[in-house]
C-alpha cells in the first residue's frame, strides 16, 4: 500500500449560532493514501463539506471554530500553519473543485485569465508561458478548440465545459490532493460520466489523491476506493468500496443502499429511511440514528449509550451496537 498523504485525526468543528453551539464535525478520523480516492457520503448537513473546508482552512471563523484534532498533510499539521503558509498550500498542494460550475468561475474574466492567475501564483511561469500552460490544461481536460475557448468568458460555456475549466484550474498546479465537493451534482448524467472519467484518467496520470464528497452512491461505486459514511456530524461507518457495497454493516448504510433503484426490478416504490435528519442543535441521546433505526428504536442501549467507532483490522470500522463485522 502506498504511503499516507492526508490523515484526519479526531477533528471537531463547532459553529456558534444564535440558538447555541452546533457541533458540525464531531471526532472525525480518516486517512487518504497517495493515488487513492476516498468518498465521503452522507445527507445534507452531516458535516462532510465542513470537513473538507477545514482541510483547506476555509471555514469562516467566526462563527465556526476548530475545537480539536489534527489534519496532517504529509505528517504536518495544517491546523498549526500560518495563514501565509496556507496560501502556498492552497491551490498548490491541495486544490478544490466546487459543486456549482455555473457560479464557480468569475464572470468578469476570461477562463484563460483565471487559469493563468493560478499558474502564475504557484508556478514559475509568466506571461506567454503561463498562457501556453492554460491552453495545455484546457486540452488535457478535453475541451475542443482550447486556444479559442481560453479567450472566452464563463457565460459562453456550457455547464459541463465550465466544470472542465474548474478542473483544469484546480489541476494546473499539479496538486497532490484534489477535494471534489459534489463535482457532478449540477450536471446531467452523460456529462457527469464524462467528468468522472476525466477525473479518473488524470488521477492515474498524476498519481493524485481525490477526496470525493458526494451523496450519490452511484458515483461512489464507480470512483472511490474507500468510503466514509457520515451521519449527524460523525462517521458511522468506513470501509473499502467493495466491502461496503457487498455487506453494509450499519443500519443507516444498509438503508442507503436499499433505497437505490435496481435496474430491471419491478418494484413499485423505492425503499426509504423513515424520518429525517436530526436537528444539529438537538441531537437524540445515545446513538444519533436510533429514532430512525428499526433495531435502535426498541433497544434501551441504543437510546442511552452512543456506540464508539470500532475497527476490525481490515480497514473497516462501524459505530453500531448491533453491527457484526
Amino acid at each position: 500500500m502506498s504511503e499516507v498523504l492526508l490523515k484526519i485525526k479526531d477533528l471537531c468543528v463547532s459553529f456558534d449560532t444564535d440558538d447555541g453551539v452546533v457541533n458540525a464535525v464531531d471526532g472525525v478520523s480518516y486517512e487518504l493514501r497517495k493515488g487513492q480516492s476516498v468518498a465521503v457520503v452522507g445527507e445534507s448537513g452531516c458535516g462532510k463539506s465542513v470537513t473538507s473546508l477545514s482541510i483547506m482552512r476555509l471555514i469562516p471563523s467566526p462563527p465556526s471554530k476548530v475545537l480539536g484534532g489534527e489534519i496532517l498533510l504529509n505528517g504536518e499539521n495544517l491546523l498549526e500553519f500560518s495563514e501565509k503558509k496556507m496560501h502556498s498550500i492552497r491551490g498548490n498542494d491541495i486544490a478544490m473543485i466546487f459543486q456549482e460550475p455555473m457560479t464557480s468561475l468569475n464572470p468578469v474574466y476570461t477562463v484563460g485569465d483565471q487559469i493563468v492567475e493560478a499558474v502564475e501564483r504557484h508556478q514559475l511561469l509568466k506571461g506567454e508561458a503561463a498562457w501556453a500552460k492554460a491552453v495545455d490544461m484546457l486540452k488535457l481536460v478535453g475541451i475542443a478548440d482550447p486556444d479559442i475557448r481560453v479567450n472566452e468568458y464563463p457565460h459562453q460555456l456550457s455547464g459541463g465545459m465550465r466544470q472542465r475549466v474548474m478542473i483544469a484550474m484546480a489541476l494546473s498546479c499539479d496538486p497532490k490532493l484534489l477535494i471534489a465537493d459534489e463535482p457532478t451534482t449540477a450536471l446531467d448524467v452523460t456529462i457527469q460520466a464524462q467528468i468522472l472519467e476525466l477525473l479518473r484518467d488524470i488521477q492515474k496520470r498524476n498519481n493524485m489523491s481525490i477526496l470525493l464528497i458526494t451523496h450519490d452512491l452511484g458515483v461512489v461505486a464507480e470512483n472511490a476506493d474507500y468510503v466514509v459514511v457520515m451521519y449527524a456530524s460523525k462517521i458511522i461507518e468506513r470501509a473499502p468500496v467493495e466491502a461496503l457495497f457487498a455487506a453494509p454493516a450499519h443500519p443507516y448504510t444498509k438503508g442507503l443502499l436499499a433505497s437505490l433503484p435496481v435496474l430491471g426490478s419491478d418494484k413499485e416504490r423505492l425503499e426509504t429511511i423513515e424520518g429525517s435528519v436530526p436537528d444539529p442543535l438537538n441531537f437524540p441521546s445515545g446513538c444519533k440514528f436510533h429514532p430512525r433505526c428499526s433495531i435502535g428504536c426498541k433497544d434501551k442501549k441504543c437510546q442511552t449509550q452512543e456506540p464508539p467507532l470500532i475497527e476490525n483490522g481490515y480497514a473497516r470500522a462501524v459505530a453500531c451496537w448491533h453491527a457484526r463485522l
Partner: protein
Amino acid sequence: MIKRANKIKLMHPEWGRSYSDMVSNEFFKSSINIASLVFIIFLFAMAVFAPFIANDKPFVIKIDGVLKFPLFASLSGVDYSTLLAAIVGVVLFLLYRRNRKRVNPSIRGALWAKQVGIGIVVLIVGIACLIALVPSKLDATDYKSKLESKEASFAIFPIVPYGFERTSICEREQPPSKKHWFGTDDVGSDVLCRVIHGSRISLSVGFVAVGISGIIGVFIGAVMGYFGGKVDFVLMRFVEIMMAVPVFFLIITIVAFFPRSLLNIMIIIGITGWTGNARFIRAEFLKLRKQDYVQAARALGLPLHSILFKHMLPNGIAPVLVSATFGIAGAIFTEASLSFLGFGVAPPTPSWGQMLSQGVSATGHFLWWMSLFPGVAIFLTAVSYNLVGEGLRDAIDPRLRKAA
C-alpha cells in the same frame, strides 16, 4: 427612446465579449444616454480649453512687424498640465478601443496595464516638468487697445475676447448685448467668460471629491463586507456616526476654520461623502463572499488583495459607479451652495455658485443674467450626470429598469 441596432462590429467574433462590452453596448442603445455623455464631454472640452475659448490675450498679434503669441505665453503650468492630462486621457481611450478590437484577449490585460502605466508616468513627469519649467508671468498688456490704436496691425483673438479677471468700471452690470453675450457682472467681468472658466471648478470639484469618497468608501466597505463579524460591527457603527452628522453644516463649519481654497472644499466633500459608497460595497461584498468563485479563488491560494480587488470588486462596483455619477452632481451642487453662501472659492476665481449669488447686486438690483446663465449651467451639468448615472444603472442591470 430610439433603439439602436448593435453597432459594435466584432472584428474577431471568436473572441469573447466581456461584461464591459455588453454594458457599453446596452448604454449606447439609448439616445438620451448618448446626448448626456456628449454634453459631459463637451463640458470637459470647455473646461480644458477654457483659456483658448475665453481670454483677453490674442493667439497671434503682430506688433511693429513682429509676430507674438501672448496667449500661449500667458498660460500657466497648471493650464498646460490640464491639456497634457486631457491628451493622455484621449490617447488611452483610443488605445483601449484599439486593444478591444485588435488585440487578442490573452495579452490584452498585460498590454493595457503597460499602456496605463506609461500614461501615468508621462502624466506625472509631464506635470512636474510643466509646473517647474513654465514661468508664471503676469501680462497686463491691453492688446485690444493696441489693435485699436493701430499699434498692432493684425491679431486673432479667442471667441470670447475677455479674461475672467478683467474688471471695467464703465461696463458694470450690463445686460446681455452683442458685445457681452451673457452680460457683465458687478465689477464689469464678462459673464460668459466666467461661466466658461467656472466649469473648471465645478468639474474638478465633482471629480476629485467623488474620487476621494469613492476610494475611501470602497476600501472601508470592502473590509467590512469581506471580514464581517467584529470588524464589520465597529466600522458600521462608525459609518452610522458619520451619517448622523449633518454634512452641509459640518462643511460650513470646517470651511470657516480653514482657508478658503478649492482643494479644501474638495477634500471635505470627499471625506464626508464616503459612507454611501462604503455601504454599497459592504452589501455587495457580503453577497459576493459567499459566491462560489470567491471561494474558488480562496481555494486556489490567491492573495487577499487579489481576491478583494481583482475578483470581488469588479463584480460589486456597479452600484458605486452609478452612485458616483449622482455623487458628482451632488458635489457640484454642494460647491455651488457653499460658493453661493460665500464660503466657497474666493473671487476673482469664477465658480458657478458664486456667480449665482452675485445675481443680487450690492445695490439691491436683481440681475437676471447673472443668475440665469450659471444656474442653467449647473442645472444642465447635474441633469446630464444624473442621466448618465441612470443609463449606466440600467445598462448594468436591465432588470432594474423593468422593476422601476
